[in-house]
């Protein structure tokens, strides 16, 4: 008997046919399970690759290594060497400390002369923080450094003309300046409105409200609000903010609509963060005679703050991608100016992308892909920030 036949014979000898059938069905089933996971991941990969192939040419261009860029490069090299050096010295027990750290100073003087001043400052902060954070934090400073490095590299390669041009009917000249600033503007107002309200509601539900019908009703209500289609929020915003409050189709109207949309998400994640603080923290403070607000402010919030902030960032990253509500309240799609006050009209990234996608010319669709890459980069940055924040502020009880 040859090899395979022998194996088969042995297999039959050991496995009763029915048992073997069960074994094979099981194996096929695992295969199916693996396939479906792979399918999900493959779809994500296909999406990212498709968008990158289409849009990368428009969004990125080879950086012209101007004087400032070159100085930044030198500074980067100097900083990396210094950081590694000081790390090694620290490992040997020689501790270097102080706000004016040599590595940071070196970065500041080298890069500060160039036009990349914001990045010089960021580098200075990053290196100083990275060197001063206690070693107990492990890899965290390095992750922060790597992220800053990545941001900086992406920034260097971004096509400046695309970022700083307004929308245009000519594909070659169309840029994403107005929607980029519009998104930023709207998000700042949304965060300023939704964060205090969301966290406030969560504190009320977790720390103040009894389990009476009112709290129960609000709880059910919040769960349902999270399931309301976003376009319905757009109609609410249209009637309430645009028409009734006469804010017109302004940044403020858009931001308030978005704030209502993300509030349920912020409330739920803040509630979870508050719930994670053990009751003994509260009881200890009460035992010292603190009032309820003192307990919340001094003994609960400091430990739940990281969680609430993480939830808010994730909620905002949802808001950044939302198109439908702003379409309904009428975020314009052709805007050749920047919003300067909250009552100016505006446009945001996803709406500009939608506008480009829905045009028949292929050139515009490629620009849409460039816009999508930018949007995904922003989302990636926000989500990484949320993850890092979660790790950094996690308290083990």
């Amino acid at each position, binding site marked *: 008997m040859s090899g395979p036949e022998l194996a088969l014979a042995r297999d039959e000898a050991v496995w009763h046919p029915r048992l073997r059938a069960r074994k094979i069905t099981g194996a096929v089933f695992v295969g199916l399970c693996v396939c479906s996971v792979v399918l999900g991941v493959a779809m994500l990969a296909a999406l990212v690759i498709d*968008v990158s192939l289409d849009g990368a040419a428009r969004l990125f261009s080879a950086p012209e290594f101007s004087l400032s860029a070159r100085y930044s490069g030198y500074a980067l090299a100097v900083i990396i060497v210094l950081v590694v050096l000081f790390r090694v010295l620290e490992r040997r027990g020689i501790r270097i400390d102080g706000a004016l750290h040599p590595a940071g100073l070196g970065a500041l003087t080298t890069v500060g002369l160039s036009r990349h001043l914001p990045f010089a400052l960021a580098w200075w902060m990053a290196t100083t923080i990275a060197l001063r954070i206690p070693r107990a934090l492990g890899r965290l400073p390095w992750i922060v450094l790597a992220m800053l490095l990545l941001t900086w590299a992406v920034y260097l390669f971004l096509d400046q003309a695309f970022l700083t041009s307004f929308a245009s009917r000519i594909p070659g000249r169309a840029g994403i300046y107005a929607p980029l600033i519009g998104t930023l503007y709207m998000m700042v107002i949304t965060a300023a409105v939704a964060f205090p309200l969301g966290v406030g509601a969560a504190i009320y539900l977790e720390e103040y409200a009894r389990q009476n019908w009112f709290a129960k009703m609000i709880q059910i209500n919040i769960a349902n609000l999270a399931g309301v289609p976003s376009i319905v929020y757009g109609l609410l915003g249209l009637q309430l903010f645009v028409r009734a409050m006469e804010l017109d189709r302004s940044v403020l109207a858009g931001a308030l609509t978005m704030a209502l949309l993300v509030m349920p998400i912020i409330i739920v994640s803040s509630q979870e963060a508050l719930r994670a603080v053990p009751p003994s923290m509260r009881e200890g403070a009460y035992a010292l005679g603190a*009032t309820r607000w003192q307990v919340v402010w001094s003994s609960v919030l400091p430990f739940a703050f990281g969680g609430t902030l993480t939830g808010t960032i994730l909620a905002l990253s949802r808001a950044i991608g939302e198109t439908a509500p702003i379409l309904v309240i009428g975020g314009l799609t052709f805007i050749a100016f920047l919003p300067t006050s909250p009552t100016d009209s505006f446009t945001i990234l996803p709406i500009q992308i939608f506008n480009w996608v829905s045009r028949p010319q292929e050139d515009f669709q490629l620009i849409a892909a460039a816009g999508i890459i930018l949007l995904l980069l922003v989302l990636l940055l926000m989500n990484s920030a949320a993850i890092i924040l979660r790790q950094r502020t996690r308290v083990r009880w």
Partner: protein
Amino acid sequence: MAARQTTPQPASLREVCAALWRDHLNPSRGGTGRETPLGHAVHLLLFLSAALSALVTVGIVFVLIFETIEFFGVIGLGTFFGDTVWSPLIAVFNETTGELESRFGIWALVWGTVLVAAIAVVVAVPVGLLAAIFLSEYAPPRLHAVLKPVLEVLAGVPTVVYGYFALLFVTPIVQDLLPATTIFNALSAGIVMGVMIIPMISSLSEDAFSAVPQSLREGAYAMGATRMETALRVILPAALSGVIASIILATSRAIGETMIVTVAAGQNPNFLASPLEAIQTMTAFIVQVSLGDTPAGSIEARTLFAVAMTLFVMTLAMNLIATYVRGRFREQYE
């Protein structure tokens, strides 16, 4: 938890206020009961921000109902639910009356919505459930820690990006396989929407699977069951309420989804259209009207709210059913 069971019914506003004030003065979490003026003010502010979320619901319902009543004052329920042609903006020929007129048969939009959502569910349920079973029953912890967030990224991708993906990546492939497909079609929008809701089903179902106690698995293994038999005949039935709730929630999300269908499914409200043709969903219609310049207060503008009301009622009903199923049919383990 016992307190949740008994729900005193609300009476008059006066009693409600009195009850809230009593609650306020009588701290529930072991407080001393004394409070500074600042504490009172803060309590009021926190209460107001919690009440705001209730006001949002009231606002949504009020806005929708107000305009919908105005709409039905002109159009009539019989026309809305008794017709299958939807053309509120352009007059079309009516076979029964023999005249050119606007038609308001919501079923054309409902068909488009349900068709796309059904395709999405057909794609997402097998993939999502199998992925959930893999993650909770088979995957080693380290793989689980990597795969779960990666799958959840799918839910975080902006929907307009999915619209782009459906129109420019999936549609050409579908057209290659089925040449009868038009550029805008329900099928590719549905497939991509299915991809979008996979993580909803897989995450929520996996939570339900993980909640099944380990002793049930061990019992099944002790009886000589294979891993698959354990997963399908013990774990899945035990977690069925959570699984069904996740599917209903994902369907509700698919029904309310806007940008994928607006970009990739077209703007042709067409009752009983095939998946290979262009359709229009309720959400896509709302976007279409919003992008045009229909004057506020006109009947065309009011259709927006009637359609949104239908959408809101459908999704709300599904969300409530999901909550009910999860609570009512939960297997209790201690």
